[in-house]
C-alpha cells in the first residue's frame, strides 16, 4: 500500500499562488520590521560604543555629554524607582479592582466599573501628564516643594498601569473554571476564603503575566513622567526629589544631541528596548506554560 501525500496547498488557479506570494511578502515585511528597528538602533549606537566602554555608562562621574561624561545610572535609578513604586501601588489596587468586578459587584455595577477602567486605559499619556502637571504637582508642592517629583511620577504611572493590571487580572479570574468555585462553595468556604484559597492561586500565572506587561509599560512610559517628575539628573534620596527617567532623558535631549551624545542616547534606547522585550517574552512564556 503506497500512501500518497496530500498537502494543503492547491495546484489550482494561478491566482491562488499569486495571492500566497503577496501575503508572504507582506508578512515578511512585518517580521523584518523588528529586525530593522534593532538594526538601526544598533547602527546609531555604534559610534558611542566604539570609544565609550560599557562600564563608563554606569561609572562616569556624571551625565554631562558636553564634557564627555555619560553616566546613565541616575536615569536608570529614576526609571527603576518610578516604575517600581508605580507597580507597588498599582498591583494591589489593580488586583482588588479585578476581584471587585469578578466577585463583589452586582452584574450591572460590575459592567459599569469595567467600562470605567477601560476608559481610564484609553486616556492618552499626554493628558495624564497634563492633569498631573496642573493638579497633582501643585498639591504635592503644598506638601513639600517642589511639586514635580518622584512621588508625582509614581502616582501618575500607577494611575496609568492600574487599568492594565486590572483588566488582565480580570481576564485571568474569568478563566478560573466554574467547577473550582462551586466546589469551594460546597465545602463551605466564605467568599474571601474562596478567593484567597482557590481563585487567586489558579489565576496566578495570568495575573503575574499582566503585572509583567504593566511593568514593561511603566518602564517604557515617556510623556507623563516627563511632564511631572521634574527631570533633574540625580539619584533620588526621598520621594519628593525630582528625577529623570531614561525615556524622559531621550525625549528631552534628542532635539539637540549630536555625535557621541546622540549615539549615547541611542545606546540607552537600545538597552530599554532589550529590557522590555525580555519582560514581554517572560510574560508570554508564562501564559503559554500556564498549564505546565
Amino acid at each position, binding site marked *: 500500500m503506497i500512501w500518497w501525500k496530500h498537502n494543503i496547498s492547491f495546484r489550482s488557479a494561478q491566482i491562488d499562488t499569486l495571492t500566497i506570494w503577496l501575503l508572504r511578502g507582506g508578512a515578511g515585511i512585518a517580521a523584518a520590521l*523588528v529586525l530593522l528597528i534593532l538594526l538601526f538602533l544598533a547602527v546609531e549606537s555604534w559610534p558611542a560604543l566604539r570609544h565609550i566602554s560599557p562600564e563608563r555608562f554606569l561609572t562616569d562621574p556624571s551625565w554631562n555629554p558636553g564634557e564627555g561624561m555619560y553616566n546613565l545610572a541616575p536615569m536608570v535609578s529614576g526609571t527603576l524607582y518610578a516604575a517600581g513604586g508605580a507597580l507597588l501601588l498599582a498591583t494591589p489596587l489593580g488586583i482588588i479592582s479585578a476581584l471587585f468586578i469578578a466577585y463583589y459587584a452586582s452584574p450591572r455595577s460590575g459592567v459599569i466599573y469595567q467600562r470605567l477602567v477601560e476608559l481610564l486605559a484609553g486616556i492618552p499619556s499626554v493628558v495624564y501628564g497634563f492633569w498631573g502637571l496642573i493638579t497633582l504637582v501643585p498639591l504635592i508642592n503644598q506638601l513639600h516643594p517642589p511639586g514635580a517629583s518622584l512621588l508625582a511620577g509614581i502616582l501618575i504611572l500607577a494611575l496609568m498601569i492600574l487599568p492594565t493590571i486590572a483588566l488582565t487580572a480580570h481576564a485571568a479570574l474569568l478563566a478560573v473554571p466554574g467547577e473550582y468555585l462551586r466546589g469551594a462553595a460546597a465545602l463551605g468556604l466564605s467568599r474571601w476564603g474562596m478567593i484567597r484559597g482557590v481563585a487567586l492561586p489558579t489565576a496566578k500565572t495570568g495575573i503575574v503575566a499582566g503585572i509583567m506587561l504593566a511593568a514593561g509599560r511603566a518602564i517604557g512610559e515617556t510623556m507623563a513622567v516627563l511632564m511631572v517628575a521634574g527631570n533633574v539628573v540625580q539619584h533620588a534620596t526621598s520621594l519628593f526629589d525630582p528625577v529623570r527617567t531614561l525615556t524622559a532623558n531621550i525625549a528631552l535631549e534628542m532635539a539637540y544631541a549630536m555625535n557621541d551624545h546622540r549615539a549615547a542616547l541611542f545606546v540607552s*534606547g537600545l538597552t530599554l528596548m532589550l529590557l522590555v522585550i525580555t519582560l514581554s517574552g517572560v510574560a508570554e512564556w508564562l501564559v503559554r506554560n500556564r498549564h505546565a
Partner: protein
Amino acid sequence: MPETSVKSAHACRDRLAELVVYFVAFLVCAAFVWITGDLVRGGMAHLSWDFFVDSPRNAGRAGGIGSILVSTALILLVALMVALPLGWTVAALLAEYMPASGSFGYTVRHSLQVLAGVPSIIFGLFGNAFFSIYLGMGFSILSGGLTLACMLLPILVSTAEAGLHAVPDAYRQSAAALGMSRTATLVHLLLPVAAPALAAGLLLGIGRAMAETAALLFTSGYVDRMPGSLLDSGRTLAIHIFDLSMNVPGGDAPAHASALVLIIVLLLINMVAMRLTTGWQHRKITS
C-alpha cells in the same frame, strides 16, 4: 467553642476584605471622576467654534487648533494608508494560509508581539534614524505617519486575525465544496463577514495613533502652521497639548480645551468600536 471562634474570625476577615474591595473600587471611581471633572471644567470654558477652525497664534496662547486638526488628520491618513493594507494582508495570511505550527507563521506572530511591546519613544528614535535621516524625509508628516504605521501594525493584525478566526469553518467548507478558489473565498465571503471586527480594529488603531506623542516628537516635528504638503512638518493634537503645557507659559487654557477635545474624540471612537465588537460577537453566536 473553637468552631464558632474560627467562624467569627472568618466572618471578620470576610467583612474586612469586602470593605477593602469596596474602598478600592471607590478610590478608582473617585480618581476617574476627579480627572475627567478637572478636564471638563477647565476645558469647557475655552471651547468655541472658532477654537476648532482658527490656527494657533502667539505660540498657541490664542487662536485655535484648526491647523493642528488638519495635521493630525494627515498624519493619521498616511499611517492608515500604509498600515491597513499591510496589516490586513498579514492577518489574512496568518488566519487562512498558515498552519498553526508552521515556522514562518510563528516568526511573524512572534515579531508582531515583540513590536506591540516596544515603547513609543523607541519608535521615535527609529523613525528619526530611518525615516527622517536615512530616507531623508526630515521632520515631516510623512515621516511621522510612517512611524505611526509601524506602531499600528500589531493592533491591526491581531484584531483582524481574531475577526477572521471567528468566522465559522462551515463557511469555508461550503465554499471549498463549491469549488471556489481560496482567494475568492477570502475576498467575497470571509472579509465581508469579518468586516465589523476589522472595523473595530481599525478604530482601535486610530485611537492609539491619536494618543501617540513620543513617537512623533522627532519625526513629525513641532510646527503649528497649516501644513502645505506631506513633507511639511506638522504637530498633532497630543503634541500640541504637550507643547502648551510644558513649553508655553500661560498656555494652560488652550491646553485644557485641546485635552478635552482629544478625550471626547477618543471616547467616541471607543464607543463605536465597542458597539461594533459586541454586535459582531452577537452575530457570531446567533448565526
